[in-house]
């Protein structure tokens, strides 16, 4: 163990800490497959909705809602990776912005579906949910790219 610590050693240690934080953030980030799975589930819901069988629609909607909620609660903190990211790093806005963005995209798809239905288009729910699925697959990773630097700012050593 060293008896004295010079600036170079301190700088190296600081860099070390920063790298480890980045490593945890990267390892616990929402995986790409999450957006594809939620997108595919949404599309299935749309196809079922266009089948116009109320009992099937109700069951599918409940299953989809429960599965998406469970998956989201599991994936957002990074539990699937073998670690759960610190609440301090996530900050108050992180989970809220993910859930809010997913909710906004799903509601937008529903709005498209209702609009198409009102105009008498065929397969309105399928088209609406296809819009939602595409937005999730494209927008999800973009959202992560925005959140990552914000998480680093909440770390022990904010980026320079």
């Amino acid at each position, binding site marked *: *163990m*060293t*008896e*004295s*610590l*010079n*600036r*170079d050693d*301190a*700088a190296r*240690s*600081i860099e*070390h*800490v920063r790298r*480890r*934080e980045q*490593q*945890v*953030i990267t*390892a*616990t980030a929402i995986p790409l497959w999450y957006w594809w799975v939620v997108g595919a589930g949404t599309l299935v819901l749309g196809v079922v909705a266009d089948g116009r069988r109320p009992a099937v629609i109700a069951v599918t909607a409940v299953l989809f809602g429960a599965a998406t909620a469970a998956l989201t609660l599991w994936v957002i*903190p*990074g539990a699937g*990776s*073998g*670690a*759960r*990211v*610190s*609440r301090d*790093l996530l900050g108050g806005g992180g989970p809220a912005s993910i859930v809010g963005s997913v909710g906004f995209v799903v509601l937008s798809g529903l709005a498209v579906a209702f609009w198409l239905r009102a105009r008498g288009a065929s397969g309105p729910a399928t088209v609406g949910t296809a819009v939602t699925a595409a937005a999730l697959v494209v927008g999800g990773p973009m959202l992560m790219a925005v959140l990552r630097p914000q998480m680093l700012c909440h*770390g*022990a*050593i904010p980026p320079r």
Partner: protein
Amino acid sequence: MTEPRFNELIHSPTRLSIVAMLAAAQWADFAFVRDELGLSESALSKQLSTLEAAGYLQTRKRQVGKYPRTSTRLTRAGRRAFAEHVAALQQLLRLPAEPENVSGSASRSP
């Protein structure tokens, strides 16, 4: 406000890596830390035992399906010691450019 306090125990490169990683997590599986840091099981176990003996982390064993899984997390004392150590490092970087002995600017612990 975190008081800068150099911590010899945490400053060892391997332990600093472990503590920095755990500070960024609520908890982490043993396997996650081992794989991310590229350590052997025995090396990681030894370092975790040292940190646990100092009261800086807790380990928890649980059964997941057929397999036992060990997870670990920093204690409140561990988080505080890490924050104080980082503050001491940052304080040293703010000092004039000549090599300085950290004990002149920040207290040492433990």
